[in-house]
């Protein structure tokens, strides 16, 4: 591949490398190497929180004589994974012209169960029936991945009890609510031997015997006895374990994750190109030619942050009212997991 905007050494000339060690309908395990931790983490974050899926968002309960409260059941319904195949052709509720919901922005599901026998009745996700028009024939169908094909248990009914409700499933992302998460979990790991000392392992007497080796420990060279610490070392190989909740396939989660990142970037590039920075209301309008500033206020070579004309330096200006100056600079990054 030809990704080499600023190649720094031979290994990087290869560009990022992806190696898959396991892939099935539930999970995909892969190694991303020759990439930076910043990019790897962006990919992890975007797969966790920003891939659109579909989940129950509105519940109208007509009859509920079960022991569970209406809102309790509504919450459980929200968390049931629904098939999100083709969700890209569904509109977000806020983008739709309709008033409330319609077939372009939602999928309707109904649940009606009454315990008529003399034993307790179990109501499963299987009993949620999609009704009405749908974008395609699978979108919004509850995911039934167990052997019996029942899906998650929603509630139990005693003889004579009844539940009747209608659900509206909408498109959304996990940043808004975790029920829209496509992944059940994403494993993210690097440096299995802790050579970089990014981890400070707790131990009783010896961390080597007390901490089990990672499954990727065999993939990387263990540290040599008495090896000096490499201060310049940076993580380079990242081990992902993307586990699907059933609404999207693990492969789709990875590709969709990258797609979401790209859409983010495309939107911003578009905005920059479109407005040419002209509506950016800063001290100067729009991009200037590279020659700008080499004249009157020209500093030879490059401009330091203090080379700013006017009564405030750019640092001073920023520090005055933004938390750049008032909180430790690293505050934003320290919450970075």
């Amino acid at each position, binding site marked *: *591949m030809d990704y080499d*905007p600023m190649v720094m050494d031979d290994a990087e000339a290869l560009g*990022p490398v992806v190696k898959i060690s396991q*892939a099935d309908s539930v999970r995909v395990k892969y190694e991303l190497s020759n990439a930076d931790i910043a*990019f790897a983490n962006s990919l992890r974050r975007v797969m966790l929180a920003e891939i659109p899926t579909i989940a129950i968002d509105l519940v109208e309960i007509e009859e509920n004589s079960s022991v569970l409260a*209406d*809102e309790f059941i509504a919450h459980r319904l929200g968390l049931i994974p629904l098939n999100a195949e083709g969700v890209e052709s569904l509109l977000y509720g806020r983008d739709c012209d309709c008033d409330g919901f319609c077939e372009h922005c939602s999928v309707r599901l109904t649940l009606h169960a009454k315990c008529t026998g003399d034993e307790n009745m179990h109501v499963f996700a299987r009993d949620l029936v999609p009704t009405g028009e749908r974008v395609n024939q699978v979108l919004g169908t509850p995911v039934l991945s167990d052997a019996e094909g029942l899906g998650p248990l929603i509630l139990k009914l005693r003889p004579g009890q009844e539940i009747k409700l209608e659900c509206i499933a909408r498109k959304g992302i996990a940043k808004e609510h975790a029920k829209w998460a496509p992944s059940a979990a994403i494993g993210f790991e690097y440096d299995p031997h802790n050579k970089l000392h990014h981890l400070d392992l707790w131990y009783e007497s010896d961390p080597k015997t007390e901490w089990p080796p990672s499954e990727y420990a065999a993939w990387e060279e263990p540290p040599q006895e008495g090896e000096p610490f490499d201060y310049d070392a940076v993580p380079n190989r990242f081990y992902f374990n993307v586990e699907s909740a059933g609404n999207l396939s693990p492969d789709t989660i990875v590709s969709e994750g990258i797609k979401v990142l790209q859409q983010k970037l495309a939107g*911003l590039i578009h905005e*920059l190109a479109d407005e040419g920075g002209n509506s950016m209301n800063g001290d100067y309008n729009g991009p200037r030619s590279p020659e700008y500033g080499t004249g009157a206020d020209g500093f030879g070579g490059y401009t330091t942050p203090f080379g700013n004309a006017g009564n405030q330096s750019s640092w001073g200006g920023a520090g005055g009212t933004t938390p750049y100056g008032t909180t430790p600079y690293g505050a934003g*990054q320290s919450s970075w997991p």
Partner: protein
Amino acid sequence: MSRARSKKEESAEIESDIAMEEAPTSHQPEDEMSVDQNEDEDAGDVEDDEDEEEEEEEGQRVRLLPGSTPTAASFEFLNEGHTLGNALRYIIMRNPDVEFCAYAIPHPSEAKMNVRIQTFECTTAIQALEKGLRDLQELCDVVSEKFIDARQKFAENSS
């Protein structure tokens, strides 16, 4: 037959709270400040606040912060966080024409992310930002392609 309605709305509420907040922690140009004040006057009307919020979302998502010069600029991104910030910082820093690049999220309850770019004289901060976005897009393309290739190879080998 009794009719109970359980409406689940976990969204929007938080955002409208932010809109009503006074004294934003990051730079607000004067004209935006006055919009905020108008909002406060009819703060009782929740629907109005939500409309304002939507308009803001559709509008500009990047803006240049005051105090910027062509080669040393701070940008404010709306509705972006560490996901874009750190990767963008990394890719912009790899541009040899860039002297300095860093990002910060000034306050966790404001959906804003700031990027500071200082370049050498051969380019401008805006050009460096645009190049960074394009480079990152290219990187995404490559990783996406490599993943699909690797997945296909894996499927061939295991069958």
